[in-house]
């Protein structure tokens, strides 16, 4: 083994392109970012912005056929791009695990939940049947499921959505992964349950010393739980920076539009939410210019003709991709 790398995750120029009947579809294009140990990073964007594909590609969990991945993902020093599934299998569960979006579909409906947790322990850690069962019940308890030894024998259909998502989390945690990919972990749940699940993830992250990639379309979710935020649009990073910078000092009009479209407590009741006009572009018909230009109020001719690359903002680690960035609210204090 080489020395433990300082960064747990280094994503460099990662692109995922699907071969479709309509031609190549660039679902993720030239994404680079990294993650230090015990850090939580948020990936936000509208539906179809490539968040889920990105998180699966980082894990190497993209479909096996009709997909081309280029670039590099170094996960705790292990290259995930172009690696055989048999090798990646040895990293899944122990190095990286995923909490899936919809607990209604991500658990096997005809397998008792205990067996679904056991399986990982027995196959991956070689535990005996008794040990695995005891550990599975411990895990169920850890994720806050009441009377875990009875629930062990339940089928997913006998549990509520929130309980199922706790089971999904228990499965992900079974082999103590160093990195947890949480792909919209609360989207399929009631609002009241969402906060519980997110708090649980936060608590477990601290307790088990994990890093977390939190994928969501809900900026409210990432605001207090992440140290940095990646904003994605049409498969590309359009802004990246510390959570504070992205919220308070964003430069990319898309980021502002996203922020304005989420409800705020400070709004008077019955305030109409601001929506982003138009729809995300068809990834099969991308133009030369900025993908957001057709929906952007600040778009100039240049925006339609030439794609902006990420450029550094005034704070270290904060970059954005825009020809006509919003003025900085910080003034000159940073320089």
């Amino acid at each position, binding site marked *: 083994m080489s020395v433990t790398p300082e960064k747990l995750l280094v994503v460099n120029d990662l692109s995922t392109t699907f071969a479709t009947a309509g031609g190549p579809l660039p679902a993720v294009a030239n994404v680079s970012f990294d993650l230090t140990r015990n850090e939580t990073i948020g990936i936000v964007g509208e539906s179809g912005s490539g968040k889920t594909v990105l998180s699966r590609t980082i894990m190497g969990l993209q479909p096996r056929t009709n997909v081309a991945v280029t670039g590099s993902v170094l996960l705790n020093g292990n290259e995930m791009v172009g690696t055989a599934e048999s090798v990646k299998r040895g990293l899944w569960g122990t190095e990286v695990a995923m909490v899936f*979006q919809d607990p209604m579909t991500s658990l096997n409906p005809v397998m008792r939940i205990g067996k679904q947790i056991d399986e990982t322990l027995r196959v991956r850690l070689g535990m005996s049947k008794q040990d695995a069962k005891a550990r599975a019940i411990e895990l169920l308890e850890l994720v806050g499921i009441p009377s875990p030894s009875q629930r062990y024998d339940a089928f997913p259909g006998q549990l509520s959505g929130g309980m199922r998502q706790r089971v999904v989390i228990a499965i992900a945690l079974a082999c103590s992964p160093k990195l947890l990919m949480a792909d919209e972990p609360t989207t399929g749940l009631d609002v009241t349950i969402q906060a519980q699940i997110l708090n649980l993830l936060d608590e477990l992250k601290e307790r088990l010393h994990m890093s977390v990639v939190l994928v969501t379309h809900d900026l409210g979710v990432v605001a207090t739980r992440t140290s940095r935020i990646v904003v994605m649009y049409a498969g590309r990073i359009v802004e990246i920076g510390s959570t504070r910078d992205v919220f308070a000092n964003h430069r990319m009009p898309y980021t502002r539009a996203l922020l304005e479209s989420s409800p705020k407590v400070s709004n008077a009741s019955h305030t109409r939410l601001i929506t982003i006009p138009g729809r995300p572009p068809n990834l099969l018909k991308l133009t030369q210019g900025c993908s957001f230009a057709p929906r952007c109020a600040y778009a100039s001719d240049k925006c339609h003709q030439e794609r902006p690359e990420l450029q550094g903002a005034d704070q270290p680690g904060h970059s954005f991709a825009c020809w006509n960035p919003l003025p900085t609210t910080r003034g000159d204090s940073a320089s």
Partner: protein
Amino acid sequence: MLRYVIRRILMLIGIIFVISIGSFFLIHLLPGNITAVIEGPGASPENQAKLYKLLGLNRPIYEQYFVWINNILHGNLGTSFISQTSVATTIGNALPIDLEMMFLSQILAFAAAIPMAMRSARKPDGIVDRFFSAGSFTMLSVPPFIVVILLVLFVTYKLGIPHTGPSSYVSLRADWIGNLESMALPAITLALGSFVVYFRVLRSDLIATLQEEFITMARSKGISQRRIMWRHAFRPSSVALLGAAGVNIGGLLAGGFVVQYLLNIPGLGYTLITSINTDDYLLVQGIVLVVSVGVVLINFIFDFIINIVDPRISRE
């Protein structure tokens, strides 16, 4: 689950009652006079009338039904007018042959269909899948009586193996190796028909299941492809397969008669055809009843298995 089972059992009793009425009256609708058959040509009308009364055929039909059903509940299916042997004994001799044929053919069909469907579903429209699918589709369009004749020709003439042609049935008790030899061709013929159905049903369900999110989730646990297929994909994909198997196996109980007739295997189907030809209506009635009840029971058992395999069904 328990309530479900009780409800199904009550339904089962009702269905069997309706079947018993059906098979009883159906035979009485048939034309022909049994007394003429028993007494042979040239019997006097007086003697015929006497026999008619002796057999109780002059009593009201509902009385005849109650006598008949009462006997059946005591295991007495009557004595054939033609052969003077007990119908229950005749059926008891023939039924194990059908059951054996059914068992062998289903083992073969599942043993081929399950691994082939899994291989196909791994890469739909890949070379292997196209080959398997085209092959199964070809077999689907060839009826069993053609298959069995081709098989006989191939095995006896090309391979020169005896004991496989017609009139060579060996009973299981007498000589089990000889029995397996004589059962091989009918079992393979019936297996081919079942295999085609099972392969196609399981293949398409597996392809659908493998798209499910819980399969990706299973993959992300780092378990092998093989384990995902058997532990995660197979069970939720097997409901339609079991449904098809239930109907198919029920059909085989009597439906193997073409193959039995062609190969001279004295199973229920074969006996049914001979008894129809000789107007042995008590035997026909008995076989119809046994086969119908058998079909209903098999369907009941498969319904039950499906419920265990997919607990979502009885919960809804």
